[in-house]
């Protein structure tokens, strides 16, 4: 049996089922959608074991016991892995109404860790570099002369950052000076969104071309 050929046929039929959705909802799409959700959930669960749980939790602990790396005869060298292990198991308390609140300990731990990390990360990776990058001399010198164009661009950039920031003021009504700044900010936002949209179009079309090359080439052999 030619497994590759079978695979290409499966892939092609699933591709067509998904595309049928563009016309309207139909049994083919429903079929592909449910198969996709099911397979991906199962696939990721199996992968989860191989990529996360096994190498990060089970394998280190197993090796500790297998190689006798234990303190006091039973505490493994990687004893601290029991903490996330127990926190992980606590999530299953939601199935037992009486102790379901224990689930919150896992939640609180996770939320605490990542909120704490976010505080320093937002500052060091976003606020400071973005401000530092905007602080540039307005006058751009080229061969000892002021370049009017470069200077204009710098000014245009700085004004844009300020106007966008003013748009995000919440404690003042958008009237008067703040209103004008916010309005300018909206214009900058619109240009930015339009540009980013236009920039992405080509990359999205090449995705479709890729699928069509699969259907017309690998499957139907119409392209050569």
């Amino acid at each position, binding site marked *: 049996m030619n497994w590759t050929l079978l695979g290409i046929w499966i892939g092609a039929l699933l591709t067509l089922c998904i595309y049928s959705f563009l016309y309207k909802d139909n049994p083919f799409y429903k079929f592909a959608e449910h198969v996709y959700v099911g397979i991906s959930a199962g696939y990721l669960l199996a992968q989860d074991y191989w990529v996360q749980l096994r190498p990060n939790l089970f394998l280190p602990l197993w090796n500790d016991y297998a190689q006798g790396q234990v303190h006091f005869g039973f505490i493994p060298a990687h004893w601290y892995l029991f903490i996330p292990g127990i926190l992980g198991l606590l999530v299953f308390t939601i199935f037992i109404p009486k102790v379901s609140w224990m689930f919150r300990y896992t939640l609180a731990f996770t939320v605490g860790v990542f909120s704490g990390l976010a505080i320093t990360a937002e500052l060091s990776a976003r606020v400071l570099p973005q401000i530092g990058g905007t602080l540039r001399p307005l006058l751009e010198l080229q061969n000892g002369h002021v370049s009017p164009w470069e200077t204009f661009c710098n000014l245009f950039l700085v004004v844009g950052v300020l106007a966008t920031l003013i748009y995000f003021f919440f404690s003042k009504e958008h009237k008067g000076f703040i209103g004008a700044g916010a309005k300018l900010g909206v214009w900058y936002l619109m240009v930015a969104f339009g540009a980013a949209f236009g920039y992405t*179009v080509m990359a999205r079309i090449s995705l479709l071309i890729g699928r069509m090359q699969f259907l017309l080439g690998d499957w139907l052999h119409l392209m050569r």
Partner: protein
Amino acid sequence: MSFLTKALTLDRRWIFLAIGIVVILFLLIPITLPVDVTPESQGVYDTIEALPSGSPILVAWDFDPASKPELEPMALAVIKHCFRRNLKVVAMGLWITGAPLIEQDINQVKANGFQNKKYGEDYVNLGVKVGGYVVVNTMAQSIKDAFPTDYFQTPLEQLPMMQNLKTLRDFPVVISFSAGDPGIKDAWVPFAHQRYHCIVAGGCTAVSVSEFSPYLQTRQLSGLLGGMRGAAEYEKLVDAKALATKGMNAQSFAHLMIILFIVFGNVAFFLTRRKRVQGAEGPRVQG
């Protein structure tokens, strides 16, 4: 309702249909639009051209199916060029999800006029090894340490071609088709080129051209194919118009189609404006 009023609320499925037809049509119909070869693409060609016949060349497939439309045509055209110049191709990859692509691509080139190329004598497929630059470093000590066997589990000693190819330093040129990291930026340029002095060239997706082009200026890359367009240029250089040339057509015309739709929508909008009650719908940013 007039035609124009209808056009304003056009069923979006007509747009879907138009885009689909344009893409399929230009993938199937071979038409040739003029393609100008940029110096960056020419650089890749010249690098390969400069190698004497019979030299070894390392080609890395550093991408997965998501970037296939842009990077696979490059790989096909470059392999064709290598085969034509009788270079000894050693194929490999750093992305596990791209592993099956290597074999597929080489076989496809072989089937189109290079049936005489023998596995183990003219080319070898080492398969994929995960680990990024560490793999490149290991290969510099010994290829066998990084790849004890080839893709088909054959030990390297049993492949005649690999007898003289023991380390990365035995390859004057490395070509990488790189969708991101690991790839040209973090593995091949800093290690294969900087440390072990191989000449490095390759290709990347259109979105990341600006990220890679500084390496061209510093000559750490001797050439770069950018996206489907770069691949189309290479197909022109090796005079084998294929996937990328067609893909490039499809891409340009689909792009044009979208622009025309937008223009059409606006024309219809302005021509019917007087008839409609002014209402503000569409994008809104409140403030």
